[in-house]
């Protein structure tokens, strides 16, 4: 600091031995900085001076808000809850299951009707609610080096993964609570042709994870064969298959399975959705999902009753601002209006009260 030079001098209090010829004037320098006269902008906040700001903000925000709102409204979104808490629900039987590893696969199919055709790419999500993926101990319970293909971590998972690090003295791959609780329902979508046949809609399993996750963060352990690479490890307790059997495609298997990667990106809020599949648009002429009847086939594995959770399947198109969310538009509109309103209030204040002293002080 600039000031320490004499600060220290004060402290040591030595007998200063000043040599000859040190009769230098101690006069401070006359610089704008040292004399605290730096040129400065001095805004004074009064009703009159801030008025323009309020009006301008109002005038800018309201159109932006309207634009956002319209954009959000143009996004088509469809949601099916297939938790099956209701007795009438097709999935009710499956939902009674508390077990993670029930051997008998439970399937149910839910029919639904899309009122509007979906023109562009459609994103298929699964949604969970009341699932606290952001729980502190849960979030921590992973080993990133293991997921990055580190061989040491593969066999000796970090203790963050405890108590999901080892099972029967074998290291778990992937370890940790997040991986252990991976969503394992299988969703399939069928379009009921007007003539009654069910056409399975092709769902793309790739491109749903972040590029950096798939290519940088997550890597399979080195080895020609995944099965060999994962030798000596065991699958997470709740899993039915080991990690190297997640997908047939070797580019989407093991740690770089995109469903796994998506799951590993822990959600911020207890009600969340995760991208499951993408329905790519094939033809410009035909809508990706035409209007009509659909059936959702669910292999119901994931128990949510223990935490009163809900499971949903969401179909959504996407705009430049993401999924459907009218909130931001409304927020912009309301903040803009409030600003405008406050601007008017300030104008009133200025003309009723501010006038007297302002004019007296300043007009002189």
């Amino acid at each position, binding site marked *: 600091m600039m000031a320490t030079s004499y600060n220290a001098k004060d402290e040591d209090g*030595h007998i200063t031995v000043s040599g000859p010829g040190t009769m230098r004037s101690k006069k*401070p320098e006359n610089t704008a900085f040292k004399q605290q006269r730096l*040129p400065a*902008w001095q805004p004074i906040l009064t009703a009159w001076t801030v008025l323009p700001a309020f009006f301008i903000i109002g005038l800018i925000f309201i159109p932006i808000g309207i634009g956002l709102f319209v954009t959000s409204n143009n996004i088509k979104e469809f949601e099916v809850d297939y938790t099956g808490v209701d007795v009438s629900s097709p999935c009710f039987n499956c939902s009674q299951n508390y077990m993670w590893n029930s051997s008998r696969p439970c399937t149910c199919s839910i029919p639904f009707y899309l009122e509007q055709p979906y023109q562009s790419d459609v994103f298929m999500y699964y949604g969970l609610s009341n699932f606290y993926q952001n*729980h502190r101990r849960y979030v921590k319970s992973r080993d990133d080096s293991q997921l990055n293909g*580190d061989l040491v971590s593969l066999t000796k998972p970090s203790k963050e993964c405890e108590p999901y690090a080892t099972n029967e003295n074998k290291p778990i791959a992937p370890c940790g609570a997040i991986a252990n609780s991976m969503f394992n329902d299988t969703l399939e979508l069928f379009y009921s042709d007007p003539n009654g046949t069910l056409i399975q809609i092709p769902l793309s399993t790739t491109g749903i994870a972040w590029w950096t996750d798939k290519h940088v963060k997550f890597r399979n352990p080195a080895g020609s064969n995944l099965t060999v690479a994962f030798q000596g490890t065991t699958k997470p307790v709740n899993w039915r298959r080991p990690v190297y059997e997640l997908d047939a495609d070797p580019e989407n298997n093991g740690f770089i399975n995109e469903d796994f990667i998506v799951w590993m990106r822990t959600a911020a809020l207890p009600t969340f959705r995760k991208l499951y599949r993408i329905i790519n648009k094939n033809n410009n002429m035909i809508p990706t999902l035409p209007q009509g009847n659909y059936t959702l086939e669910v292999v119901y594995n994931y128990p949510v009753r223990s935490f009163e959770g809900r499971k949903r399947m969401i179909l959504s198109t996407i705009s430049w601002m993401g999924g459907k969310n009218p909130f931001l538009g409304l927020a912009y509109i309301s*903040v803009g209006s409030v600003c405008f309103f406050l601007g008017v209030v300030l104008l009133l204040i*200025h003309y009723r009260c501010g006038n007297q*002293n302002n004019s007296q*002080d300043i007009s002189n």
Partner: protein
Amino acid sequence: MARETAEEPGSAETAKVKRQRKEKTKENKTRTVHANILYEKAKGEENPNRLYADNKIKTTKYTLLSFLPKNLFEQFHRFANVYFVFIALLNFVPVVKAFQPELALAPVVFILSVTAIKDLWEDYRRHRSDKEINHMDCLVYGRVERRYVEQYWKDVRVGDFIRLRCNEILPADVLLLSSSDPDRLAHIETATLDGETNLKQRQVLRCFYDLDCDFDPMKYRSTIECEKPNNDLNRFRGYIIHRNGRRDALYKENLLLRGCTIRNTEEAVGIVIYAGHETKAMLNNNGPRYKRSKLERQMNVDVFWCVIILLVMCLFTAVGHGLWMFQYGDKRPVFDVLSPEGTDLSPIMSATYLFLTMIIVFQVLIPISLFVSIEIVKICQVYFIHQDMDLYDEETDSHLQCRALNITEDLGQMQYIFSDKTGTLTENKMVFRRCTVAGVEYSHDANAKRLAMYQEVDSEEEECTSHGGTLPRRDSVSSQQSARVVLRSHSTKSHRRTGSRAEAKRASILSKHTAFSSPMEKDITPDPQLLDKVNECSSQMDFMRFHSQPMSTLPSELSDVIDFFIALTICNTVVVSSPNQPRQKVRVRFELKSPVKTIEDFIKRFTPSRLTSSGSNNSSSSSLITSRSSNRGGCSSFLSSPSADSTLTKLDEEQRGPPGSLEQAFSPVQPPPPPPCYDGKASSLEEGELRYEAESPDEAALVYAARAYKCSLVGRLPDQVTVELPHLGKLSFELLHTLGFDSTRKRMSVVVRHPLTDQITVYTKGADSAIMDLIKPPDTGNSKGKRQKKIVSRTQNYLNLYAADGLRTLCIAKKILSKEQYACWLQHHLQAETAIQGREELLFESALRLETNLQLLGATGIEDRLQDGVPETIESLRKAGLQIWVLTGDKQETAVNVAYACKLLDPEEEILTLNADSQEACALLLEESLHYIQVKFLCSSSSPSADPATSAQAFHTDYAPPFELYHPSHSSSSSSSSYAPPFTVHRLGLVIDGRTLAYALDKSLEEKFLLVARSCRAVLCCRSTPLQKSMVVKLVRNKLKVMTLAIGDGANDVSMIQVADVGVGISGQEGMQAVMASDFALPRFSYLQKLLLVHGHWCYSRLANMILFFFYKNAMFVALIFWYQFYCGFSGSAMIDQWYLIFFNLMFSAFPQLITGTLDKDVSAETLQQLPQLYMNGQNSEEYKPYMFWMNMMDAFYQSLVCFFIPYFAYADSDVDLFTWGTPITTLALFTILVHLGIETKTWTWMNWLSITFSISLFFTVALCYNASCPTCYSPSNPYWTVQRLLQDPLFYLLCVLTPLAALLPRYFYRACQGTLFPSPVQVGRRLDKLPAETRRNILSLGRVKVGSPPPPALSPKTPFLSVNKPSPPGCNTSKEQRSFPSPRSHTHKQGQSSPAQGPTDSDKGLSDPYTSAPSDIDTLPYTKDAPKLSGEKSKDSACPDQTLEASELSLSSWITSTPLLTQTDSVQINLPPDGHSACVTYSRSTEDRPERSLHTAL
């Protein structure tokens, strides 16, 4: 005071000393020093001096090894550091850990290491300067070499003989054994110790006095016994034991202190007594002072609240988590992770763990960086204060020193100023004004005219400079060009000043000449009448001398005159020096026996070569030798031998033999030279060029005055004073004793043998009170006695007159001792001198015995001129709401008059004078005054809080409102509130003398005294001792709970300076003790104005705002995480990455607020000085009131809600992941915080912009780097590529625009409304700043500023700021009663009260009272609607229509307003009869011509 037993050498003590202390338990009272050379051969073990500290100094705190542990230990003394380390360590416990443990340590380590590096650097600097000092050279006697060899300072040991050469610095405390000086003296300059620039004489030990040849260390065999090392610079006691067993006493006059510089002495030899850290200089060196400021105390309270909030939040979360866990029961949701051991955690256990985790997560709420930031900001503030050109005094080339680094903001919160008078308000430059000799007054009109001329020159100068100075500063946003203008105007200003007195003074100081040599002080124009008398007298004496007539035939008046001047000349300790070599004393001994034959001879002798050329050692030593030898040979009988014993024996001889013949004594030094020749060359040589250096300025003033009458002091030796008198030529007075001045005796005396009469004469000079009591009661029998009586009474009259003029008075008296009396006294005195225990007391008693039965010669009046700008400063400080008390040791009359002169007391206001002789009387007086105040200001006490602004307005327009607003809570909480009048300040002055003060400060009376004193506008304590000063300050500070500032310049102010919250020392002429004790040292009193009003205000408002902002910032940031707990099962999860969480405070948001905290100026310096009222802002802690903390907290919670929930809803039910959602929130919080700071920033310089840009870019840079650096690290957040993706997301930008705006909308709106509806005074000041300079000046000068007009009642909750232009309220119109309480008019008072309807008319008439309304209008001018002219007319008009005023009174009263003279002032004296039993108190007007107005009030 027993220093020998309880020595506390302080931090400088080395381990060695401690060990030594243990070992030397057997001789714990003294130290014995042997000469080292005797033991050179012996092994170290046997050297008796081995246990004493060596001369190597080490002021460093640390060594390389001990640095880390010791520094850490010291830092952990600060509670906050311990807390943060505790939290960081908590992170290492796996169950509760929230962050990566290493990362959590980062901030603490950062803070600790910043402090450690600072300490290390400072220590290194100390080490380097230690090394430099330790390696300086000095000459030490080596036994082997048998000569003095060069050694490093650090190798000097106790018991070494060292030889000192001229201009060398003393390496240790040395006992002077030999000096090349013919008088066996060594001169030292103690500037480095106490700042006093005059030379001090040190004497060679008497027993080594007679050595003719050089001192030979080999022959030294004595042992020295002296006190243990202590830090008392002014005391040294001990004795030297010679081989033959003889003991000689040692005095402080024999000791040369380390750090002093040898001057005027070619060589001196001494033995080292104390070395290194045991030297007095080092023991006196206690480091900087640390005080805790009021703001910091307040801040600590809020830090405490933060802790509570933190605990509440943690508890809430913990309970929430427990409940959350509980609701799942046994179902074990999959996301609820088991403990690492795989066991289940019970809800209660996890809640407990979570509590600790939350403390870690929320730790940011306790601002770790706050303490460091405050320190940095304060250092910068100190730097800027230091750099202020306006606080730089060109004349002395000194500027303000901040010695306490951490109480700058206290300067902005002062409420009481306690000031010393002499040297603080006044210049402490004594100018001889008038004198009275033998009852005849010599008015020195010509001298007065001359002084007036100086004054005119001064004031003219000031006008010019002030005109030139304000011109360029008008626009606050000064461009480069205007800066140049300032520079130019400044240079012209300095040029102007250099033209006159200032230049002379500066030149004299720069060239190290004596400080008392300005022509104003030196050139005294003699009074012609007195000059004639002096001439006549001396010619008569000359005549008589030639005719061998006894001197007693001289007319007594004339002899008094000549005695008076002789006393002026010799009764002092002035040293004569010649200007060419100011440090070379004139030391030619005027031999009485060898008359000068010719004038040429005289001149030749008088200007020896050594006077003009100090370098030529040869010639000087030869001349010295000659003079010395001639001494010895020539005048053994007459010149006193230096030792007192021989004086005594000589006396015996003289008594036996016939008294020394007059012939011999009068043998002329020189024949009276022919007048023309004398006046010509010779006089120009001596008189024009001799300089006097005195320890106190009044001594010099008197000597200069005497010189004006041709009685000049031409030489002073320890045993002889040479005076040159007209006609008589040079006379040498044998100086037998000097009884120095002390503050208890208040006088000094010299005992001389008068060369003309050969009588032993005592000349005494002292305070009139001290002398007058000692005057010999004249026996009225003979004419002489009658004359004496007349002289005494007349002199007393004149003394009173002088005092009334504000002059310092001194009485001069003499006494002639018969030989027997002298011998008798001498016997006792010698005993006293040689005593070791209680020597001071014995000497004191001895002096008392001598100074009795004096014969009064006359008295002098010396003016102590006010410093430049003192009245203006006091006025403006008072407008700033500061109560100013003056505590002085001066006598009442002088003090009162200076108080009038510096506008402390107003001629228009009444003065309560408290003089009591006993405790009961004092109690009675206080009771009476209280009663008086209550009755007189009944109105204000009857409606204390109902309408404070208006009731206050009636009396004390500009002072009262702030007090009323601020103190009601206090006065109600005070224990004495039952009878306490509301704390208002009336237009009253209180004068109390030291004796009464002593009674009043008694426990039983202090409450009452305070009640009286605090209702007075000005308090003046005269004749107060240093202890009383500090007691008063302590009392006010503790009882009234106010911030106190003490300012003083002398040693007597030190205790007061230390007691006050802020001590200010004036680095003036009275040494540096006050400065050493002070927190701030100023070159002049008037600088206090800018220091307080501008820098104090700035420092306070900057720091207050910064602290509040810190609290806000941390609360806002932490609350974000708190809200998140509701969405993560209260699990202690944070969406903000741990890195951001930890570095947010430390790095991302730190710089802008530091810049704002350092540079922000709410109001410009000019406006602050022109509107002192703005200072009340700080006094009342407007910027940081307790509720503001909570307001800020509320705002923080609101803002964090906005910053949390806008992203929450924007991302609700989306696939956003934890940190992709948390990062925007962090960014938003950062933006919000920065914009918030922007709203609170009053001035935007490029530094502000830069710092904000820097902050934002730093955040993004760090975030980008961090997020790109490692895909697998930073568990658990693992934010790889998060920011990069966010930056591609338009939603992120939309949020960044919307959220800060929505968050700050209320604050912005509030600030705008506040600015319009109820602007604070500061805002009005700021608005003034914006005006063009010309307009602003006009407004300020015309008093057109209406700060805060009466707002619409519905909209303004606050009372307007100083709305004095409202009509006087009815019923409260006692203003006209103010001075009429004791008068028969008091019935009108009741009328006014009983019929409120009469109010308005009364209030119109109220203007008629010249004592109240008119001045109040003037006082409040800057704030009222009227131009000064208008009100002036009003006050003139007003004198007429009051019917009740008698004609005489009317004319008198109108006259009073124009002539502020004490005798005419309408003051109320409350005097008790001295017996104290009378139940009657006299209120008497001091106006003498109206005795009939005095009123007796029965109790």
